[in-house]
């Protein structure tokens, strides 16, 4: 049959095209209504993944936000709130479509959530130009600066690495191997780590390695490279499924126990820790939160979260809980006329937040000035070791 050889190529093109096209599908539709009347519920958009590889993070963020609202009788700033959830999906396209729906169709007062850096970069102009505040509770690439309507209750992507650099430089008994997932957050984390690790006298074992994301499932070739490099410690950045694969294979190929592993806290955060099982024991991570922190705000948060959702709260849930808390304060401060603009103005003056992570406040870039902690995995749980540093100022 002439021309039959062309079919495999067409097959791949077709499949790829379909996969890409369907990834762009947004959420359902809800009827739109008018602006603020001074009373009645205010609408808050929650843009979190309800499907795809980030679904677990999206669940945590939704839970954290809803818990705060529930603890406050379904009211934020004295106003009854209606939470409109939209599916961010896995890609910037699906996130953009969902954000557009929240802003233009549902006409929400503010939006919170956003897991992926690609999404937040993609929706930046939408929020800036429509002057609707976005109080993000996870995604925060280093390149996102100079915005007026975008706030984040999480951290800037290079901070978890920055927090750990000096500590690892002092602890490691030789060169350190740097490896991370090959996307923006991975690069931000590794650069952040280097920015404090190298000045503190740390030495790297080889050039840093970025593994293709998300398709890398088998880390064996990279683990072989680490072994060959003679590194005395490893700093890695992985989250979600890749974190489970990396940690398990780190043990299976005999590196655990021989070469200590350091990472930003996502490596062992939330559900992934359960998946890693005892392979995660001894991993030391930096994070702005640990479920076993002893402050009063966390004592009101962590047990309530555990009894509501049956799992220890993660930093994702905590940051989303804080986003609700920030909005609670800002809506109250906005006074009688609650509009996106008045809430945004109030956000700038919201002051100290008494958070489960400890007290923090927004800096001029709209990201938190907050404490960072060192944690170690012991018997399947992240346990607090010490406070490392305060970053964000």
């Amino acid at each position, binding site marked *: *049959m002439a021309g*039959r*050889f*062309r*079919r*495999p*190529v*067409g*097959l*791949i093109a*077709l*499949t*790829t095209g*379909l*996969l890409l096209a*369907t990834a762009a599908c947004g959420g359902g539709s809800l009827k739109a209504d008018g602006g603020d009347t001074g009373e009645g519920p205010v609408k808050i958009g929650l843009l979190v993944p309800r*499907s*795809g*590889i*980030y*679904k*677990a993070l*999206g*669940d945590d963020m939704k839970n954290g936000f809803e818990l705060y609202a529930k603890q406050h009788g379904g009211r934020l700033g004295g106003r009854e709130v209606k939470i409109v959830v939209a599916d961010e999906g*896995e890609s910037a396209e699906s996130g953009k479509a969902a954000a557009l729906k929240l802003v233009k169709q549902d006409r929400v007062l503010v939006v919170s959530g956003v897991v992926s850096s690609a999404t937040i970069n993609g929706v930046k102009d939408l929020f800036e130009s429509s002057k609707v505040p976005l109080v993000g509770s996870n995604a925060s690439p280093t390149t996102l600066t100079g915005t007026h309507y975008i706030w984040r209750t999480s951290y800037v992507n290079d901070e978890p690495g920055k927090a750990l650099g000096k500590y690892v430089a002092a602890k490691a008994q030789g060169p350190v191997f740097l490896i991370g997932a*090959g996307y923006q957050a991975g690069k931000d984390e590794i650069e952040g780590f280097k920015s404090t690790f190298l000045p503190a006298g740390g030495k790297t074992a080889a050039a840093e*390695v970025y*593994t*293709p994301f*998300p*398709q*890398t*499932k*088998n880390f*064996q*070739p*990279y683990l*072989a*490279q680490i072994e*060959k490099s003679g590194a005395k410690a490893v700093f890695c950045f992985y989250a*979600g*499924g890749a974190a*489970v*694969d990396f940690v*398990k294979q780190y043990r*299976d*190929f*005999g590196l655990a126990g021989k070469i200590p592993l350091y990472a930003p806290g996502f490596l062992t955060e939330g*559900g*992934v820790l*359960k*998946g*890693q*099982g005892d392979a995660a024991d001894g991993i030391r991570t930096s994070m702005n939160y640990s479920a076993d922190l002893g402050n009063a705000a966390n004592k009101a948060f962590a047990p309530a979260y555990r009894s509501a959702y049956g799992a220890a709260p993660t930093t994702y849930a905590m940051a989303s809980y804080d986003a609700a808390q920030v909005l609670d304060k800002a809506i109250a401060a906005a006074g009688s006329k609650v509009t996106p603009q008045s809430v945004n103005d109030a956000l700038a003056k919201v002051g100290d937040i008494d958070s489960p992570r400890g007290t923090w406040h927004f800096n001029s870039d709209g990201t938190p000035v907050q404490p960072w902690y060192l944690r170690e995995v012991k018997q399947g749980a992240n346990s607090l070791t010490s406070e490392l540093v305060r970053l964000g100022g």
Partner: protein
Amino acid sequence: MGGWLDSHLVSVVDGVAFGLLLFTLAVGLSLVFGLMDVLNLAHGTLYLAGAYVAYALSDGSLWALLLALVAGVAAGTLGGAALTLLTQPLARRGHLDQAVLTLGITFIAADLLAASFGGEVLPTDPPTALRGSADLLGHTYPIYRLVFIGVALAAAALVYLVFERSSLGALVRAAVADRDMVRALGVDTRKVLYGVFAFGAALAALGGVLGAPILGPGPGVDETVLVLSLVVVVVGGLGSVRGALVGALLIGQVQTLGVALLPEYAPFLLFGTMLAVLVVRPRGLLPSAVRT
């Protein structure tokens, strides 16, 4: 040479394990598409279903793995038969319709699986007896992967013998070469179609059960393995068991040894290899000799 082999031995062995895992997936896809002309993009879902079965049934004993194998193969066979039933009415309407239908099934199944198992990747532990690591000429290597290589090699040999050396395989190949003639001989060719489809699906589910400790079930895994097996099919050539095996082993090495040797080119190696093969041999390395 000895030193080179020593430092890359683990990568080579792991490439074989990974390649054989891809083979269990690709062979079904290749036969169904190459021989039956049905484009089944729900093939990755069958792997995912098998992997979830392994996760749900695993309790650390070998019996649980055996039970999961039986359950997985049964589920795969049923899934394959159901997919044949669904794609049959579209047989004359070209590949796009089949692709849209099977891709739709993929999304529905993925959402149902995510609803029942959650959004996390669920790495399944191998049975207690096969856990831990072995010493491979001075290198550490997981025992389960060694066992996997053995089992998957046996499965590959069995598939090869059945399709290329048995009368049953001859019947399938004959049905493809000239369906009307086989029908005239009194054979119900629909049964052959259902049989091949169900067999390929069962093999993918089997790969899922055995592969769960290596490539654990979670959202998105179905697409990952689908794309990898499509690449294997393109590289190996459509409709041949040997082609699928050679393609899978090659892609396995590219994904392990290739990445170890050229880490900075890791994102391009997979499709670079495919491109190179397509340029040199547009029909794949070992395409089916049945149809010309």
